């Protein structure tokens, strides 16, 4: 029974991991850039969330997801417009990697200077502790809510990209950056919006993760690695694959912790390495 519970919790936790990765999968799919500051933005949104919750204690933390996502969207647009668009068209594929890495170093250390290096936690009151019994199993209400929110966001993203005019423009830009110019599309502007969307999704994941696990300015590295593992395991640039990748990692991590309490994320990393060894093109290749 305890194993069933562990696996269910792993799946719930994994939905959150999928959300960490889907923003990265989006920009990998659209502009073939890996944003190495993704983890730092996840942590930054958690800090912004903590500050907002501190400033408005009568508002429920989950309501704060919205303003934090809006701020993260703005930051994403700014990051893309000011920095990444300048290198994204260069033939050298490393320019964007190195640039975002520089951004990550600056952000991480700025957060240490501003917020200090202590571990933080986002308080969610009663909700964080509430649990419900389903067929004799104890499952937290918050994890269930988080999984539901993840699925809703994944579905929303999927619909946005496949059913709307904006989605059509994004997919066309991903396929032929130069050809869409002929149709009057400015690829740089599309990229701005896509990066904003990517970081908005990441910020939601960052806030929710801050409720479940403590974080510090140094957590960005860990978050980036998880997000990246989700992207690779899910098959590069696919969304539902990212969700399944996240769930696989969540289950691996919680089962690992059950077997070996001080393992940390070791088993998730091992799953990733084994996955890469066996299927370099991703464990779950789902067409989007």
């Amino acid at each position, binding site marked *: 029974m305890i194993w069933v519970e562990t696996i269910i919790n792993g799946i719930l936790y994994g939905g959150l991991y999928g959300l960490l990765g889907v923003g990265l999968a989006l920009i990998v799919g659209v502009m073939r*850039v*890996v944003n*190495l500051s993704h983890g730092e933005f996840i942590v930054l949104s958690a800090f912004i969330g903590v500050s907002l919750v501190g400033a408005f204690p009568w508002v429920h933390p989950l309501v704060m997801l919205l303003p934090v996502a809006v701020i993260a969207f703005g930051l994403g647009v700014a990051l893309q417009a000011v*920095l990444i668009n*300048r*290198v994204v068209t*260069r033939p*050298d*594929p*490393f*320019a964007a*990697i*190195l*640039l975002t*890495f*520089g*951004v990550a*170093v*600056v952000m991480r*250390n*700025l957060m*240490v*200077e501003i917020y200090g290096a202590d571990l933080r936690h986002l308080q969610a009151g009663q909700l964080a502790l509430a649990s419900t019994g389903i067929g004799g199993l104890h499952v937290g209400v918050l994890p269930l809510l988080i999984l539901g929110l993840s699925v809703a966001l994944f579905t929303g993203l999927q619909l946005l990209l496949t059913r709307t005019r904006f989605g059509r423009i994004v997919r066309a830009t991903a396929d032929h950056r130069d050809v869409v110019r002929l149709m009057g599309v400015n690829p740089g502007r599309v990229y701005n919006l896509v990066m904003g969307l990517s970081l908005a999704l990441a910020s939601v994941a960052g806030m929710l993760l801050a409720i479940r696990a403590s974080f510090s300015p140094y957590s960005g*590295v860990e978050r*980036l*690695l998880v997000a*990246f*593992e989700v992207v*690779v395991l899910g098959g*590069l640039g696919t969304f539902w694959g990212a969700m399944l990748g996240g769930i696989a990692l969540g289950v691996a991590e919680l089962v690992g912790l059950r077997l*070996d309490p*001080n*393992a*940390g*994320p*070791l088993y998730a*990393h*091992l799953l*990733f*390495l084994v996955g*890469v*060894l066996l299927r*370099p093109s991703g464990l779950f290749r789902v067409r989007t």
Partner: protein
Amino acid sequence: MTVGVSTPRTGAGSRAPGRTYRAWAIVTLGGASVAAAPWVIGEGAQRFLSEALLMLAMAQMWNLLAGYAGLVSMGQQVFVGLGAYCLFFASIWLKVAPFWVLPLAPLLCAAVAAVVALFMFRLREAYFAIGTWVFSEVVSLMISKTERLGGERGVGLPTARLVDPHWLEPLTFWISAAIAIASVFGTYVLLRSRVGLGLMTVRDNEIAAASIGVDVWRNRFIAFVLAAAGCGLAGAVSFTATLYVAPGFAFDPNWVVAMMIIVIIGGIGTLEGPILGVIIYFALREALTVVFGLSAGWYLIGLGLVAIAAILFEPDGLWPLVRGHLGGDWLSVRREPPGPLRLAEAAPVAEAASARGLGATPGDS
């Protein structure tokens, strides 16, 4: 830097005799000043120089990977840490002075890199970068969990007492200097060899290189293994100086952060770039932390901003600018094209060939 045509000189590959003398004079002078340094400068200065020299060696290894082999590794700290752990435990278990077991560190790192390359090379570009990083995290977590290896708390180096304390600092300094010099000239020799030519053709155009028969995988493999050995050696010496190793320090991503920033600022894909980068890196550190009294965090922020500016405005780093002012060839691995002499020799052949309608370019031989 490109392999190809530069301005023709006098003879084919011959160098002016004055340049050879000057090179030897520089080598002798440099060797003598390194040997004499411990009697001239204090222990603090030696420690500082050792640190900078080891950092130069690591940065040069990262430059070999990213600038020539097209492999951006963000897990290079795994070899720094493994080298240090190998040295510590070999020295403790064999009960000998740490310097005697130093050669084991690069050997272990080379062996690990050879195995890791088998599966990491399936990943390309950013995926390779983060794949190596994940590998480093896994090794770090595993060592943290192994009490026999000191666990999370780490271990000291009691066998350092076997070295005369008066000689510990000078020995570290000399070894660091030797490693730094070997990293620069070793990379130079490697890049002048067939392997180096192969690496650079792959970097410039992978498909074209593969189609003329360059073994892309093999050349990258050699570079990855050598870079791992270099980082392992430098890491081992670096932790000998601190007499203490723990997973948090040994596998700290800041090692690779420093390597990357140094190479980006100095000039990626040039041998002189990392040297210039190390000078700027340590000058900035001393200026910000000692002169202005800022914390290490602000100094990393400053370096990150400089690196971002470099990528945006000077993607080739600062060395090409500096070289433009100084002139000369320095450590260029560029090859001389066959000069007029060879051209004259080749002329009849070329004529014969063109007579048969084949055509030949003088540079082909």
